[in-house]
Every structure is written in structure tokens, then in C-alpha cells.
């Protein structure tokens, strides 16, 4: 509903020549919402890691590493795609999101490789469990973020 209102404001804004201002506001709000999601996930990882300490130190730092492997590429993606100079041409927007996505994937591959090469011993169950849990929580939080998306 909120986004429907926003789209109407954007259409209205086009008529009065203030489309870019409305789009910029929407973009900043989206970036804030995404960073809030990432903050919630960081808190989740910290809590899980503290709980993992009850089991063993290896479990705790594996959980922490799983969380970092998810969070660092996502922070890069969100910052690169949503912050910085505002773009309004669809082709430029597409190119920026593609480049951000590519950077996110390369960063994730590099971090996974470095982790598996350098960290021994490692608890793969804790690491992948945290990684998958964060992916699922990301889906859930992002779906909750946008009511209009659920209707599409």
C-alpha cells in the first residue's frame, strides 16, 4: 500500500517536474531499509556466535565466519547499488546493479576460498548452517519489507 502511494507520487511528480526528487527519496529509504535488515542479521550472527561458545570455540568462530561470508558481500552490494550518484536511466541502473552483483559474487567466492584455505579447524555444519539461515532470514525480511511485491 505504501509503495503504491509512492508510485502515485512518482507519477504525480513527473507531471510537475519533481520526479528525480521523489525517486531519490524512495532510493534513500530503500537503502536505509536494507541496511536495517543487515543490522538485524549482524545482531543475529553475534547472538548465535555467543550461543555457539556454549558448545565450543570452533563452533563459535565458524558461526561468526558464516555470518561474515554472508554479510560482507551483501553490504558491498547494497552500498554499491543504492548509495552514490543517483541514476534515472534504466540502462544505467541495470548496469550498476549488474556490476554490483558481479562484485558481490567475486567477493563471496574470494572470502569462501580464503576461509577454507586458512582456517583450520572449522565446523562446516555451523558455517553453512549460519550462511543458509541468514539467506532465509534475508528472504523473509525482504518480503516483509515490500507489501506490493507480495501482490505481484
Amino acid at each position, binding site marked *: 500500500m505504501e*509503495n503504491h502511494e*509512492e*508510485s502515485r507520487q*512518482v*507519477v504525480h511528480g*513527473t507531471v510537475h517536474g519533481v*520526479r528525480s526528487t*521523489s*525517486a531519490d527519496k*524512495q*532510493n534513500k529509504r*530503500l537503502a536505509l531499509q536494507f541496511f536495517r535488515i543487515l543490522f538485524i542479521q549482524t545482531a543475529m550472527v553475534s547472538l548465535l556466535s555467543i550461543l555457539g561458545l556454549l558448545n565450543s570455540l570452533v563452533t563459535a568462530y565458524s558461526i561468526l565466519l558464516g555470518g561474515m*561470508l554472508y554479510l560482507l558481500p*551483501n553490504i558491498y*552490494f547494497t552500498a554499491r*547499488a*543504492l548509495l552514490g550518484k543517483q541514476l*534515472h536511466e*534504466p*540502462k544505467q*541502473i*541495470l548496469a550498476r*546493479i*549488474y556490476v554490483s*552483483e558481479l562484485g*558481490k*559474487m567475486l567477493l*563471496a*567466492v574470494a572470502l*569462501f*576460498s580464503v576461509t*577454507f*584455505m586458512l582456517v583450520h579447524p*572449522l565446523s*562446516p555444519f555451523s558455517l*553453512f548452517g549460519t*550462511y*543458509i539461515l541468514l*539467506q532465509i532470514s*534475508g*528472504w523473509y525480511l*525482504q518480503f516483509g*519489507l*515490500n507489501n*506490493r*511485491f507480495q501482490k*505481484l
Partner: protein
Amino acid sequence: MAELLFVAVALLLGLSALAGALGVSLLGGKFLEGAARQPELVPLLRSQFFIVVGLVDAIPMIGVGMALYMLFAG
């Protein structure tokens, strides 16, 4: 046995890359179609596109992570 491990890793990485590329490219095409049809909705479409791109690459990235674990730790 080691050869089979490399084949499994190659399959996991290759199929993950293929799935991610197909998903993201289809999304990009639909975004451009939507933007061409209704240019006034570009900011809204951009938000939707950004959200869904984040969702599409989740499963391929899990596959990539498991392939790299098999490669380096296996």
C-alpha cells in the same frame, strides 16, 4: 576418487553460475521491458529489481560455497 571430486566441484560451480546468470539476465530483461512500457514507474521497478536480484543468487551462492569447501577442505 580425486578426479570425481573435481568433476563434482566443476558441476556444482558450473550449474550455480548458469542458474544465477539465467535468473539475473531474465530479471534484467523484464526490468528493461517494464521501464520501456511505463517509464514513470522506473524508481518502483528499480526497488523490485534490487530486491529480487538479492533473492535469485542465494541458492547458487550456497552451491558455490559447498563446492569450494569440497575443493579446499575435502
